[in-house]
C-alpha cells in the first residue's frame, strides 16, 4: 500500500477537495432557496414560511431529515479534507481516505435515492407550512450541526483505526488519532450539553434529561467514545492496542445505529423525524455491512495487533475496569432503549421502559466509576498492598450493611459519598498545587473533578427538588418552601409569527425578590400551542414556573418548581468540555 506514488496521493487530495467544494455549492444552493422563500421546493415548503425570521430560515435548512443529512455529509467531506491537509503524505493516509470515501459514497447514495431535498412541486404554493415552533430556539439552531459534526468526526477516527490495522500504528497515526478522538469527544459532549440545556429551557418540563429513546441513542456512541478516548492514553506503549481498535470501531458503528434509530422512526420519541421505511432499511443495511466488514477485519488482524496487557492493580488495569464499567452502562442504555422493539416484534405489544430502570441501574455504576478513577489518583494505594485492598472491600461491605440496616435513602448516601470523593480530590489537587507549584496533569485532574461535581449536582437535583401545582388569580400569592410567589399580571402580546399570553410573577425568598415571566404561545400557522417557561437561576437553585391553563373564574393553573443544582450541572459540564479542549490542544502544542 505504501508504494502508492506521490502523484497518485496528490491527485487523491485534489479529488477530496473537489468533493468538498461541490458539496458546499450544493448546500449553498439549498440555503439560497430558504432565504428566497422558494416554496416550489417541497423541503422548503414543509419547513419554512414567509413569516419566519431570517435567522430561523437559515436553521430550517437542517430542521428535518433531508437537510440535516445533507449537512452531515458536508461535514464528513469537510473533515476528510481537513484530515488530508493536516497529515498529508503519511503512509496510512490513502487507506484512511479510502475508508472515508466508502462511507461518503454510501451516505450520498442514501441521500440521493431516499432523501432528496431538491424535489419540487409543479405549482408554486404561496406560503410554507412553517418551522416546527419547538425548533424555533437559538439553542436548537446550533445543537443539530454540532451533533452531526460529532458523529462524522468519529467516522474519521474509525478510518484511522482501519488504516492502522492494515499498516501498523506509528507515532504520527497515534497523534492524529488522539487529536480526532479529542475533537470528536468534545463535539459530541457539547452537542449533548446543548440538547440538555434546550430541553430544560424550551421543553419546559423542568428536567434536563428524560431517558427519551433519541437521547439514549446519542449516549451510546458517547459512552463508547469515552472509553475509546481513555484507551488511547496508554496505546503509545502498545498496551491495550486491540482493545482500543475494538472501541474505535464500535464507536463509529454506534453513530450509524443512532442515525438509523432516529431517522427510521422505529421508536416513539419527541425528537423523531417523520418515518419512512425505505430509509430505515438502507441505514440498517449500511450498519450491517460496516459492522461485518470491520469486525471480520479486526479479528483477522488480531494476531497482528498482539499487545501488552497491564499488570494487576496497575493504573492500566484500573483503566480497563473503568472501561468495562462504562461499557456496562452502555449495555444498560442499549437494552433499556431497544427492549421495547423486542417486545413489539415478538409479543406485538408496545412497552415503556421508564427512567427508574436507567437511574436505578446506572447510579451505582457511576459511583463505582468515580471511585475507580479517584483511587487511580493515589498511586501509593496501588503498590503491592493487597491487604489494603481487602480492607477497602471489607469497609465498603460494612458501610453497605449499615446503610441497609438504617434504611437511609440511597440517594442521600450517594450524595454524601460523592461529596466525600469530591473533597478528597480537591484536597489532593490543592496539596499538589502548594507543594509542587503546579498540578501535574491539569486537564486530567480538572476533567475528573468536573465529572464528580456533575454527579454531585445531578444527585442533589433529584434529592432536593420540589414542586407545587396551584391556581392563582392575578394579584394572588402562595407560600411554598420558604418562598412567596405572586402572580402580578397577565398580558396578551402579539409577535411576528405568534400571539402570546405573558404572566408576570414575582418570587420573594427571604430578603431577595426576583421577577420572572412565563408565556403560553399560539403560533399563527398551524395553531400550535407552546409554553415558554419562566426561570430565575441562582448558583444553588432555580425557580421555575410553567403557565398552565386558564380557569373560568379567571385564575390560571401554574406549576412552580424549585430545582436544585441546575447551574452546577451546566458549570461542571462546561469545565469538563474545557478540560478536554485544553488536553487536546496541549498534547499537540498548537
Amino acid at each position, binding site marked *: 500500500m505504501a508504494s502508492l506514488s506521490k502523484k497518485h496521493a496528490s491527485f487523491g487530495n485534489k479529488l477530496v477537495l473537489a468533493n468538498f467544494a461541490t458539496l458546499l455549492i450544493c448546500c449553498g444552493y439549498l440555503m439560497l432557496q430558504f432565504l428566497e422563500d422558494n416554496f416550489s421546493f417541497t423541503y422548503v415548503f414543509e419547513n419554512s414560511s414567509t413569516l419566519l425570521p431570517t435567522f430561523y430560515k437559515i436553521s430550517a435548512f437542517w430542521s428535518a431529515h433531508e437537510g440535516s443529512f445533507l449537512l452531515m455529509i458536508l461535514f464528513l467531506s469537510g473533515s476528510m479534507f481537513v484530515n488530508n491537509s493536516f497529515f498529508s503524505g503519511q503512509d496510512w493516509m490513502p487507506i484512511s481516505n479510502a475508508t472515508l470515501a466508502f462511507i461518503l459514497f454510501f451516505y450520498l447514495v442514501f441521500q440521493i435515492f431516499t432523501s432528496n431535498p431538491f424535489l419540487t412541486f409543479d405549482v408554486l404554493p404561496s406560503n410554507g407550512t412553517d418551522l416546527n415552533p419547538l425548533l424555533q430556539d437559538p439553542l436548537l439552531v446550533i445543537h443539530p450541526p454540532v451533533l452531526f459534526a460529532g458523529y462524522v468526526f468519529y467516522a474519521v477516527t474509525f478510518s484511522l483505526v482501519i488504516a492502522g490495522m492494515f499498516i501498523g500504528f506509528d507515532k504520527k497515526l497515534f497523534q492524529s488519532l488522539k487529536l480526532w478522538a479529542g475533537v470528536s469527544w468534545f463535539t459530541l459532549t457539547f452537542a449533548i450539553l446543548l440538547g440538555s440545556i434546550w430541553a430544560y429551557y424550551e421543553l419546559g418540563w423542568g428536567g434536563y434529561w428524560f431517558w427519551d429513546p433519541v437521547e439514549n441513542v446519542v449516549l451510546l456512541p458517547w459512552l463508547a467514545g469515552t472509553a475509546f478516548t481513555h484507551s488511547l492514553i496508554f496505546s503509545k506503549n502498545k498496551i491495550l492496542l486491540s482493545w482500543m481498535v475494538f472501541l474505535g470501531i464500535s464507536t463509529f458503528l454506534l453513530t450509524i445505529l443512532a442515525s438509523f434509530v432516529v431517522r427510521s422512526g422505529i421508536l*416513539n420519541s419527541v425528537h423523531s423525524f417523520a418515518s419512512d421505511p425505505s430509509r*430505515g*432499511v438502507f441505514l*440498517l443495511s449500511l*450498519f*450491517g455491512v460496516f459492522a461485518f466488514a470491520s469486525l471480520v477485519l479486526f*479479528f483477522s488482524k488480531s494476531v497482528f495487533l498482539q499487545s501488552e496487557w497491564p499488570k494487576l492493580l496497575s493504573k492500566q488495569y484500573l483503566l480497563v475496569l473503568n472501561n468495562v464499567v462504562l461499557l456496562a452502562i452502555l449495555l444498560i442504555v442499549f437494552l433499556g432503549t431497544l427492549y421495547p422493539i423486542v417486545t413489539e*416484534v415478538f409479543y406485538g405489544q*408496545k412497552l415503556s421502559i421508564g427512567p427508574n430502570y436507567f437511574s436505578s441501574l446506572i447510579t451505582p455504576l457511576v459511583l463505582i466509576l468515580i471511585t475507580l478513577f479517584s483511587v487511580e489518583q493515589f498511586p501509593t494505594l496501588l503498590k503491592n498492598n493487597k491487604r489494603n485492598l481487602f480492607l477497602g472491600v471489607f469497609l465498603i461491605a460494612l458501610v453497605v450493611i449499615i446503610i441497609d440496616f438504617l434504611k437511609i435513602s440511597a440517594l442521600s448516601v450517594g450524595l454524601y459519598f460523592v461529596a466525600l470523593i469530591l473533597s478528597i480530590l480537591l484536597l489532593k489537587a490543592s496539596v499538589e498545587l502548594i507543594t509542587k507549584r503546579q498540578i501535574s496533569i491539569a486537564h486530567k485532574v480538572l476533567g475528573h473533578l468536573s465529572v464528580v461535581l456533575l454527579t454531585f449536582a445531578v444527585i442533589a437535583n433529584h434529592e432536593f427538588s420540589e414542586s407545587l401545582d396551584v391556581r392563582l388569580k392575578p394579584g394572588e400569592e402562595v407560600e411554598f418552601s420558604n418562598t412567596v410567589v405572586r402572580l402580578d399580571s397577565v398580558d396578551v402580546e402579539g409577535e411576528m409569527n405568534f400571539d402570546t399570553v405573558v404572566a408576570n410573577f414575582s418570587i420573594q425568598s427571604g430578603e431577595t425578590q426576583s421577577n420572572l415571566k412565563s408565556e403560553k404561545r399560539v403560533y399563527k400557522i398551524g*395553531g400550535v400551542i407552546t409554553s415558554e417557561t419562566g426561570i430565575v437561576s441562582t448558583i444553588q437553585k432555580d425557580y421555575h414556573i410553567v403557565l398552565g391553563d386558564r380557569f373560568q373564574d379567571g385564575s390560571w393553573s401554574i406549576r412552580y418548581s424549585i430545582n436544585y443544582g441546575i447551574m452546577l450541572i451546566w458549570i461542571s459540564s462546561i469545565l469538563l468540555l474545557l478540560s478536554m479542549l485544553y488536553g487536546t490542544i496541549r498534547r499537540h502544542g498548537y
Partner: protein
Amino acid sequence: MATRYFLVLILALLVMMLSIFSLSLVQTDELQTIKTQEGKKLIISEKIYDLDGNPIPFKSLTEGKVLLNVWASWCITCLVEHPFLKSITESKDVKLIGINYKDQSFNALNYLDKNGNPYEFSIFDLSGDISLKLGVTGAPETFLVIDGEIVSHRIGEVNLEVWNEKFAPYF
C-alpha cells in the same frame, strides 16, 4: 482460540440485533400504543346536556348504531376531518353525535355555524370528565357504539381510508 469464541459471540449478537431490527421495520401494520376502548360498554354516569343546555337521555346513545365523535373548536385536526364527517352523514344513514370536548359553548356554536353541523346534537363536556371516563385521550376521537357497546374506536383523524377500515363494515 479465545478470540475465535469472541468473534462467534459478537457476530451472533450482531445477527440477532439486525434481524430484530429488520423484523421491526417490515412490521407494516402500525401498532396502537394506546389501548382502544373496543369491547367495553359505553358508560356515562353524569347527567348529560347538549350545547344549548337541554338535558339528553342517556338512552339516545345506547339504542342502535351511534357514531360518537369527540371534537373541539380549538382542535385543528377536528377542522381537518370535519368535511369528511359532513360527507358521511350526507351520503349514508349515520347517526352522528358529537362530544364537545373542553370548549366554551359559544366558541363551539360559532364553529358549527361557520363550518356546518353534521351532528344530530353535541354533548357539552366542558371539564372533559365525561370523555376522560370514556377513555378519550384528546380530540379528535371517534367511537362506533352499537346497542351500548363500543365496537370500534379510532384515536385521531377519521378519513376515507380509516373509515373503510374501521367503520364501513358496520354500515
